């Protein structure tokens, strides 16, 4: 059991590309930390640096009070679950789990005890003699988990372990991983690009972008108070609507140039009068998406103007488009004009090009 601390960790490649630009955070003993970010943000690289599979250019990685920068992966007392599981194809499930223990010269009956215990926890007992090729995706995933837990390491590292599974299994395994981690109470670092996975699993969420940390905190805090426009649009699905500041007179000093954000679930369709403390705007309905329990209404704001100053990144709505979540299945018709209200306490305001959040 151990806590993990990263101190000003950097990674630069010989060609000059800086993949990790000074990252600093700490995971307390037994906590579940999730690194989330778009592809190419450096989250996997960072995890591999903790594992010892990538060198650290500068800074310190501390596992349980020991600086591990120069220590071999095998001696860092970590276990890793890979995206493609990396099971040894020619070994049985039993041997896959036992291999790491044998290499450490553990006595045979202790290995046997640990492997059987792990197999019992993961419901693999009936599959111990099979080869990985004879297992389903979910079973392979469990073997990979088993290989990690028999080691009883100080830290579990997960590199997008669920992304090769189908959607249904992914949710089931997500719950299982969380239960298992609670039960074993082992410090874990988990990398994913799926914000929903990140929200549901994390004790501590680290949102990364471009080799830097955008925000660290408890998932709900991050959802409620995103620190930057990047976090605001990355965490939460569907993503937060962003609009140029001049749409609201919010009592901020004149000349504040910024962005105002509101989540689709915080908008309300109300065709009669503005409630006190809300801002209201008109939308023309452009598209409707029914998902069953709720309906997404895509509306265009009539004036474009400076709306174009916010650039749309992949996954973000195009400028001028506002997404409204309506409960149930009733929705306005396409082309209809509607009025939506956003309560003042649900607004997010960002300045400095979206890099800084200010509280209203």
């Amino acid at each position, binding site marked *: 059991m151990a806590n993990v601390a990263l101190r000003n960790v950097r990674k630069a490649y010989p060609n000059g590309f800086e993949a990790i630009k000074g990252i600093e955070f700490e995971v307390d003993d037994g906590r579940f930390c999730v690194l989330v970010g778009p592809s190419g943000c450096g989250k996997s690289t960072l995890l591999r640096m903790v*594992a*010892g*599979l990538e060198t650290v250019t500068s800074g310190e990685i501390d596992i349980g009070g020991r600086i591990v920068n120069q220590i*071999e*992966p*095998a001696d860092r007392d*970590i*276990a*890793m679950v*890979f*995206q*493609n599981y*990396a*099971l*040894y*194809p*020619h070994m049985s499930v039993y041997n896959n789990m036992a*291999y*790491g223990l044998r*290499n*450490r010269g553990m006595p045979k009956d202790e290995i046997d005890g640990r492997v059987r215990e792990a197999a019992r926890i993961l419901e693999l007992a009936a599959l111990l003699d099979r080869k990985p*090729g004879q297992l389903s995706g979910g079973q392979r995933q469990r073997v990979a988990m088993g*290989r990690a837990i028999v080691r009883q390491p100080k830290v579990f590292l997960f590199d997008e372990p669920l992304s090769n599974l189908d959607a249904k299994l992914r949710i089931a395994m997500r719950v299982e991983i969380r239960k298992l981690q609670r039960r074993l109470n082992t410090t874990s670092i988990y990398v994913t690009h799926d914000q929903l996975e990140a929200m549901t699993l994390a004790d501590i969420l680290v949102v990364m972008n471009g080799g830097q940390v955008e925000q660290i905190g408890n998932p709900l805090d991050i959802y409620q108070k995103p620190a930057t426009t990047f976090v605001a649009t990355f965490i939460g699905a569907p993503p937060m609507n962003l609009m140029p500041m001049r749409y609201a007179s919010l009592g901020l000093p004149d000349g504040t140039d910024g962005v105002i954000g509101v989540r689709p679930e915080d908008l309300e369709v109300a065709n009669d009068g503005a409630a006190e403390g809300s801002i209201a705007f008109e939308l023309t309905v452009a598209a409707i998406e029914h998902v069953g329990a709720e309906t997404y209404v895509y509306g265009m704001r009539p004036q474009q103007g400076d709306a174009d100053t916010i650039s749309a990144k992949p996954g973000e709505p195009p400028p001028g488009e506002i997404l409204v979540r309506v409960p149930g299945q009733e929705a306005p018709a396409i082309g209809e004009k509607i009025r939506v209200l956003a309560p003042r306490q649900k607004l997010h305001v960002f300045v400095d090009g979206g890099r800084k959040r200010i509280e209203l």
Partner: protein
Amino acid sequence: MIEHRRFGNLLPHLVLLAGVVVVAFPVYLAIIASTHDNSVIANGQMPLYPGSHALETYWHTIVSGTQKTTRQPVGGMMVSSFIMAVGIAVGKIAISIISAYAIVFFSFPFRMTAFWIIFVTLMLPVEVRIYPTYKIASDLHMLDSYSGLILPLIASATATLLFRQFFMTVPKELVEASKIDGAGPIRFFFDTLLPLSVTNIAALFVILFIYGWNQYLWPLLITTRDDMQTIVIGIKKIIDVHDALTEWSVAMATAVLAMLPPVAVVVLMQRLFVKGLIETEK
């Protein structure tokens, strides 16, 4: 593609049968010839049915040697050939799997240079470099020895290339998982890479065994001792006799015997051989 045509398969079958006849007939003829007395063949009337001298011919050929010449019995030649073929196959596989391992999994200065140098030797088979190779073998006192027969032939660019291509398909996560599991380079090689390469090794063994078994020029140069002759050279010597009739039945029996080990290797390793050549999923 599944087609159901009653006579549609007739033509392909005829073509295949014709091919089989063309390939198999000389073999059949060799077997038939080895069962007749020399005089029958010497008459120039080669029968197409088996004769009655099979046991006698094969006994002379394998064990006692022939009566009219002082040839070695073929049994000894087969042993020499077998040692050479296995030595070449095992040696080539061992050397090339190790060099491919170094080239693919380790980064060291001039790694690609090393690879290209190995690659270039593809253009230099033994026949091309025969004089310098002979000179080296002779300077190292390897003439008339099995090491002289085997060592100069075991450096193999083809096998190195094949293992390199295979190793590059091994997911790098497997290497990393091994590292985390505490397996160093040697352990990874023996515990993971070698078992994964079994089918490739088998396929290569079949090809290289036959390559080694069929060597003619090199053994001819290196060995002059009668008890070290390989069977391929033996056939030639049995046919080339001076001042006497060629013992065709013995020559044919030798040819038949020379065919057996390669056939046995192919038959025994067929399943692995095919798997090694077509298997893609690891």
